[in-house]
Structure formats: C-alpha cells, structure tokens
C-alpha cells in the first residue's frame, strides 16, 4: 500500500470502524499493540506487522487521524514582552498593568530582551533554524481582554523555524516497549498573551483582568505528524520537560503557563486530508489526549453517518468528556495582519556576524546562548540508561517528575545499593507515597540521605525488604528519625541467629502438620505458606531465603 496510514501504534486505541495499519513511515518502530504483545515476556525485536489478520472487509473503511498542535508557553520572565509590568501568577486583579498593557493611546512596545533569549534558547533546544531577522505583526480581533484590538505576534517571519521534537510513546502492556517518534516543528513565534475575561452571567457582566495581558508567549507550532491523543499528549509532555529544563517557561498546565490547541482531521489513507477542526484551550495532558481521541471518533462517526465536518473551533467539556462548538468563535475571522510599525526588525547575531565593538547589552549572540544550553532531557535519559542500565521507561518517569531525578542522584551518591534497587525504591515506593498524598518531591518528608541509609541497611541484609518498607513508612511519618534509629526502636533488624530461626521453623512445622503434609506431597505452594508463617513468627525480621533453606533441609 503506497499511502502512509497515519494512525498507528496507539496502544489499545482503535477507532471503531478503523483499520489500523502499521505506518510505512515507521522505520524504527517496533510494532506492538495490545494484541501482538499478548504474551508476557515475549522477546522483543520480533518484527511483526500489526493486526495482519484484520484486513478491511468489504464495505468497511479505514480511517487515519491527523493531529497538529499549537502550543502557547508563557515565557518565564520577570516582566512582560513589551512593557515593564511584573509577571506573577495569582496577583490581585489588574495590579500588574502598565499604561502600555492597558493600551493607553500613545504608548509604544519595547521588546524585552529576556523573552527574545528564551525564544532563541527554546529554538536551539528544538533543533530549529534561528532567523537572524524576524518581524512583528499585528493580528486584529475585537475582544474585551485584548485592549489594543490587536495582538502583537510574528506571523510573517518568526524567530525560529524548521525544528523537531523527539518523544517516545509506550506501546503494549508490560513489559512495555518504547517507540521513538519525531514531530516536526514548523515555527516558534514570540507573541503577547491576552488578559482574562470573567463572565458573570447572572448579572450579565464581564469582568476583565489585564494582569496577563502582554505577558510573553512562545507559540510553538507542531506539524500534523501525530495521529492520536496519546501521541499528542506525550509530545506535549516532552516539550514541557524541555521548557522546564531550559527555564524558558515554567510550563505548568494547571496555571495556564502551557496551553494547547489541537487541529484534528480524519481521512481515508491515500485520499486528501479531511476538513479539520480546532479544539482550543486544553490545559492538561490527560484532557488533551481525551479531547483529541473524542474528536477523532466524533469526526469518524459524523462522516460514517453521511455528515460533514465543519471547519470550526471547538472546546473540550471535561465534565462531559466531549468537544462542543465554541459559540463566540463562529464565522470566519479575518485577522487583517499588518506589520507592527513601532518595532524595528528583530536582528540576532552569531559569533561571525556580531558587529565589532557592539554593546553586549544591545545585541543578542545566538552562539552565546547555545553555550548556555543545559543538558536536555533526552541526553539525561540516555545517560541514565547507559550508566545504570535503567529501563527507558524508568528514565522517562524519573525525569517527568520535578526534582525526582535529583533525588535519585542524591540517593545514588550515598548508597552502595544496586542502581536497579534504588530505581525501584524511588519510582515505586517513594513516588507512590508522594502520589498518594499528592506531594511534590520537594515536599517529601524523607530525605535522599535517609533513603540511602535505609537502602544500605537492606543491602547489608541488616533488615528484610518488608522490614525496610516498614522503616520507610515510619520515616515518612516521623520526620527527623534515622533509619537505624527506627530499626532498633522497632526491633526490625534481621534475625541473624540461625539457631533461633531453626527452632522457630521447627515449631511452625509442628503447629501446622497439614501444610507439612501438603509440602511433602509436592504442592509447591505449601512451602511458601510455611515460609510466610515462619516470617510472621519472626515479626518479619527473617530473610525468607534463609527460612526456605532451613525448611527444605528439615524435610
């Protein structure tokens, strides 16, 4: 089949009536899907076409979905893009508004250097070509929270173009596999944020807060290289991580520092792309995925039922889990773009083109910014995989939680325990506790040193792993106690005295003759029960392998 089928490799994701084929563009992809990886422990690397058995029957159509994203990231900067107003989240309404932000006549924009640097740095991290000359334009529309009646943006010649963003999606059930994917970045442009409107329907009033008006945004336009909600959500998460690593945006979706609009269409492979809809203002990765998948399904259903897709803007109703048309975005908008006459072209330099004797405060040197680029998440993950033999998915999790990597590395510094053990403790136990109580890593009551000490005790076999769990729980509850302290206080130390252990085994066997009988009959599970009973008798302070050894000897 010549035409690439665009919806591929979305685990567990099957559009009804959709025939999912493996993308021919997927050179690196290991095909999986819930079906083909049904057997646990299946050796990887077996190249198998996905769902080969499911040829489209007569009358059935296959659908492919095409998803592109426009992402707005608020630039992390003390002041706004074109004015000196401060930028703070949740400041009192209209307390951060300069004359320019309120569009008083006669005020003029003055470009914030920090925002330009953030855009260049983000562009470099996303493999973009940085335009040495970029331009600003006005985009006009009337809206109450847009005081000037236009937004200053970069429509004609944006600051960065032609980049790419690599991300990995999980496929299949455990052990899951990671597929590396790339989405092209069309452009990154600098633009102003709008203010906020609060509609009070009861009193039929609209309240305007201009604190956000004029805050610098990076609009990152991702080409329609994605085909389902999960791909989009994963790409967004990766971008979020990169922005946070660069420090160019806090990229907190809940606080609106990262907002995503998705362009979605479906079509039959080999045929022209379908009419697209835009789903606006998606402010969590989960809702993004849900909204996209809902919208794909909606479009397919609509078309299957002989309907047509309108080129419209929709919003996601997270309560109902569906997308609905946005009333105030009806009708065709003509933004009447015009070059912003009050801002000269934005010129950037590199070490070659930098004019001699230029005031460093007046020019921006791309090469200098390149030098300041921190290690990017993909590199960090690769290092973790290489250095500790970590599974890729573990490296992903470690980076996706703010501060978790640092925590892990600090534990590693102070412990002799195996990296795998540390990884497991950090990702399962530690992260599990955090999630349960909805805490950030920085709010954890357990320090890296404490966990390291605990893992050292475990490593020395001074405590059993179940005792270690108890110690951990205690550490979590009572701040300031050391693991050693807890172990001695609660007598959780491992029973090292073999004689005592043998006596306990003997006593347990005598108390449970039926289990001993089962064991002798060859029931493999019986010994486990016996081990459990002995451990209980030791208050979980004995090493199960030693118990097993003793029990086997005694039989």
């Amino acid at each position: 089949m010549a035409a690439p089928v665009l919806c591929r490799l979305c685990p567990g994701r099957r559009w009804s009536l959709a025939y999912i084929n493996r993308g021919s563009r997927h050179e690196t992809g290991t095909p999986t899907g819930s079906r083909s990886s049904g057997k646990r422990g299946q050796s990887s690397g077996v190249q198998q076409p996905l769902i080969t058995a499911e040829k489209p029957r007569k009358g059935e159509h296959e659908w492919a979905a095409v998803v592109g994203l426009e992402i707005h990231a608020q630039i992390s900067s003390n002041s706004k893009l074109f004015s000196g107003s401060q930028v703070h989240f949740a400041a009192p309404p209209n307390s951060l508004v300069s004359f320019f932000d309120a569009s008083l006549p006669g005020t003029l924009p003055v470009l914030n250097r920090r925002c330009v640097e953030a855009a260049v740095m983000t562009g470099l991290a996303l493999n973009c070509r940085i335009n040495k000359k970029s331009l600003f334009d006005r985009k006009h529309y009337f809206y109450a929270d847009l005081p000037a009646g236009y937004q200053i943006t970069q429509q004609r010649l944006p600051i960065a173009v032609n980049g790419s963003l690599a991300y990995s999606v999980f496929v299949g059930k455990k052990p899951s596999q990671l597929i590396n994917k790339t989405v092209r970045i069309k452009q990154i442009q600098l633009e102003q944020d709008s203010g906020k409107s609060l509609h009070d329907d009861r009193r039929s009033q609209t309240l305007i807060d201009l604190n956000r008006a004029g805050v610098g945004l990076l609009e990152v336009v991702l080409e329609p290289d994605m085909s389902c909600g999960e791909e989009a959500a994963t790409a967004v998460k990766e971008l979020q991580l990169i922005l946070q690593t660069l420090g160019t945006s806090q990229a907190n979706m809940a606080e609106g520092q990262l907002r995503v609009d998705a362009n979605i269409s479906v079509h039959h492979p080999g045929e022209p792309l379908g009419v697209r809809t835009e789903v606006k203002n998606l402010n969590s990765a989960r809702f993004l995925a849900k909204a996209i998948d809902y919208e794909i399904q909606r479009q397919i259903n609509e078309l299957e039922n002989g309907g047509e897709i309108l080129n419209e803007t929709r919003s996601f109703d997270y309560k109902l889990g569906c997308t609905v048309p946005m009333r105030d975005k009806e009708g065709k908008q003509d933004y009447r773009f015009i070059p912003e006459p009050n801002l000269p072209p934005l010129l950037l330099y590199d070490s070659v083109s930098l004019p001699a004797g230029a005031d460093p405060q007046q020019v921006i040197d791309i090469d200098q910014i390149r030098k300041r680029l921190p290690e990017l998440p993909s590199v960090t993950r690769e290092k973790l995989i290489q250095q500790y033999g970590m599974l890729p998915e573990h490296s992903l999790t470690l980076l996706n939680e703010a501060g978790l990597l640092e925590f892990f590395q600090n534990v590693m510094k102070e412990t002799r325990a195996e990296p795998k053990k540390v990884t497991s403790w950090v990702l399962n136990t530690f992260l599990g506790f955090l999630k349960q109580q909805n805490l950030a890593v920085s709010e954890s009551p357990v320090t890296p040193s404490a966990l390291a000490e605990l893992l050292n005790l475990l490593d020395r076999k001074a405590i059993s792993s179940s005792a270690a769990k108890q110690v951990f729980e205690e550490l979590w509850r009572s701040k300031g106690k050391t693991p050693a302290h807890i172990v001695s206080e609660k007598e959780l130390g491992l029973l090292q005295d073999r004689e005592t252990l043998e006596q306990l085994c003997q006593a347990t066997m005598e108390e449970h003759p039926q289990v001993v009988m089962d064991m002798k009959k060859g029931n493999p599970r019986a010994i486990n029960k016996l081990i459990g009973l002995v451990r209980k008798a030791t208050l979980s302070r004995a090493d199960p392998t030693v118990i097993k050894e003793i029990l086997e000897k005694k039989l």
Partner: protein
Amino acid sequence: MRTMLGRTLREVSAALKQGQITPIELCQKCLSLIKKTKFLNAYITVSEEVALKQAEESEKRYKKGHSLGDLDGIPVAVKDNFSTSGIETTCASNMLKGYVPPFNATVVQKLLDQGALLMGKTNLDEFAMGCGSTDGIFGPVKNPWSFSKQYREKRKQKPHGDNEDSDWLITGGSSGGSAAAVSAFTCFAALGSDTGGSTRNPAAHCGVVGLKPSYGLVSRHGLIPLVNSMDVPGILTRCVDDAAVVLGVLAGHDCKDSTTIQDPVKPFMLPNLTDVSKLCIGIPKEYLVPELSSEVQSLWSKAASLFESVGAKVIEVSLPHTSYSIVCYHVLCTSEVASNMARFDGLEYGHRCDIDVSTEAMYAATRREGFNDVVRGRILSGNFFLLKENYENYFVKAQKVRRLIANDFVNVFNSGVDALLTPTTLSEAMPYLEFIKEDNRTRSAQGDIFTQAVNMAGLPAVSVPMALSNQGLPIGLQFIGRAFCDQQLLAIAKWFEKQVQFPVIQLQELMDDCSSIFENEKLTSVSLK
C-alpha cells in the same frame, strides 16, 4: 521696539536672563492674549493654573541664577494629540473627550524638564486627520492672518460681496491650532505632529516656521498615533533658530520608542552659513503641478534665483514616483488608522455609549458615537485594504511604491544635492467657506501634495515663510534634507529666512485694542451658527 510677545524665543529667553521680564509676567501676558484671541479657537484647553505654577518655579530658578537653559520660563503650546499628564487630551474627538492621560509624552516631558511653561493644548482635525484644522469636535481654527492689517487692507481694495465677518481663512492643518497659537504670539513655540504635512502645511498658511524632523530623531512616545510609520512630532516657531533650539531639546534616543535612533545626538548649534555657493539645491520637476498657483510658482522661482545669485548650484531633479504618493499614502494611512483606532472600544478609557445589550453592540455604538465621519471612513477603507484577499493588491503594493518614493529621494541626494526646494502648499490659505466645499479626502490630497512624500521617506523638511501674496497672506516654501541631516537643513533654511525678511504679522488691533477683540468675539458667534 517690538513688544515682548512679538519677540522670538531666543530674544525673549535673553530678556528673561537679563531680567527685563520675569517668567510670571511673561506667562500672564500670554494668558491674557490667549483670552483675547479666544475667537481664533487655537486652544482646546488652556492650562492656566499649570502654566502659572510652572512660571513661579521658573521665576525661583531665575532668582537663584539656576535657570535651566534657553527654554526656562518660555510659554509653549502643545497639540492636543500629545499626552499630557493631568491635562485632558482629546484629539478633538468625542472618543477622547474627558480623557486625562496619566503620563507625559516624551517630547512634552523634555520641554517641561527644560523649564518651559505649558500654556495649553491646541486644536486640530479629529485625530489629526485633515489639512484644514476644520474637522474637530471643537470647531475650526481661524487663521490669525484673517485679522491682520496686511490682509484687511488688501481686502478693502477689492470689491467683494461676501459678508466680511464670515470670510475668515483656514489655518491649514492638522496642527492649525499650534500654528495659529505661534502666529498670534500666544506662545513662542508649539508642538505639532506631522504625518503627511500636518506641521508644515499650517506653518505655511500662518506665516511661521514648521519643522518636520527626520523620522526616528524625535520620540513619538505619548503622541497619539495617526500613522506610526510616518508620524513625527513637529515644531512650530517664529524663526528657524527657535526651531533649532527646540529640536536640540527634543532630539535623541528614547527607550520608550524603539524607532528612535540609538546614536547620541549632539547639541544643535545652528551655524550661519557663510559659503552658500558650495550648496547644491535641487528643484524637483514633478512638483510643478497644474494646480500650483502662479504666485507660489513665481516665489518658488525667485527663491531658486536667490540661491543661484550667490553662486549656489541650482539644478532640476526628478522624483519620478511623486504622483503615486497621495494614493499610496491613502492606502498605508487608512490601514494603520484602522489598526491604531481598534483600541478605542470604550472599555479602558474614553467615550463609552449607554448601550449594554452585548459587548459587540457596545463597541459598535461607542465607535459610531465617538468618531466623526472622516475617522470612520478611514477605518472602513483601512480594514478593506487589510482583508486577506486585498492585502497583496493594496497594502503590499503601497509598501512597494513607498519604497520607490523613498528611493527617489535617495537617488537625488546621492547625486550630490544638499537640499530640495519646493513649495509647501499649492496656494495661500483659503477662506473657510470655500475650503469646506470639498470633502476631507479631496482636500487632504490637495493639501498634502508637496509635503506628503517626505513622510514616506522619513526625511527632515522645513517650511519657511517667504513673502506675502497679493492678498497679503503668507506663502511658505519647503526645504527637504537628507535623513538625519536636520541641522544642515536648518542652516540652509536660516540663510534663506535671513534673505527674504518675511514681514511680521500686524495684529495690533487684536493685541492692544480691547474693543476690537470684543467685536471679533461677536463675529465668532455669528460664524459658528
């Protein structure tokens, strides 16, 4: 001996320094004259209290011997499209009636920092859209020359049937209020703005010097924009030297206006040109248009001969794209107007209508009530030119033509021309009744014909009054210089000014005789019916 108010800025500055007059006395004299000449309608707001307070401060400085410089204690006026902190700034529009800016335009601040006294805000066409100062909500500005001895005497000689009282002349515009204020001696310098000739045109009609500096030399911050890419604060004074003094104060980088030049501007020391014979003056042949009055044309030739007579090279040059300038300007101007006016929605400031059925209905009614027909018409055509399907055919084409027009000037200056000499206007000031027969657009096309291309190219230009017409009305000529060679341009203008010895306006009746003032006030009320 001339009265104190009849002096130039530099002369009165010297008088202040020598203690011949105090700032408070000077201020009071001007305020009193402003009241007497109220019928001219030059001022929208007279900031009497502010001016007197500033005069007191200035007087203290003079007493201590700490004067701030040439502008300390000098009464000035500012066109009502420059933001003035605490003083209403209307743009002669209902939209901004009652709007009091919380900040000063950079140029206003610079004047105040030098100790200048702000007498008030001057009248204009609504949002500076016009060339007559007739199309603002506060009514038209009357040209002081309408009441001059020179003009009146000529009128008596000719038989005319019109009612003499309603036969007053326009000032030109849109900075007509500023030009009239300087011409009628109510202040020593005034700020105008110049987008297509709005400073030079009324300067020519009112017999004063009107300077449009190079684009980027003077900050636009606080100037309520007409066309951002062409607007420049203009300077109106009674002589070239005074314009140079004010420009020296205003010029330079402003961190609030990214389009101002970064290079430091040296103080303006206007030299007396000693060797005019080294100059090359270009006469653009395209400026000889059929509509040009024969009187202006002959004065233009005379001026050229003047330069030739002292050995300067005077050559005919060509600016081949000149004829496209007005139509090109129309597209660019209205497009930017459509964009700039979008902010006037009644939400943050300015006029808001009573309609509250929806935000959109409120916008529509607010803008309908707030803007006059001229502004609304330009917004409409500008939005048309910016529509996606029209953008390439209109806006982009106009930008290309603009480049061609700018290149015309570059080519001429590269060929060795130091300055261009042209008429400023087609003819002398027109009677109001005749002027309003045409619509605003036609009038603007005629009024800006010689001045407008300069704004396309961002060049400095100055209108200098040369002589009185047969009717006894001023006629000005325009010098156009190389970009950022404002100083050289002014030096040439100063030499020319000295040669032509333009007569002083004779307004004795107005200034000395209260009974005639009274009569004139009556006359105002008649004509306003």
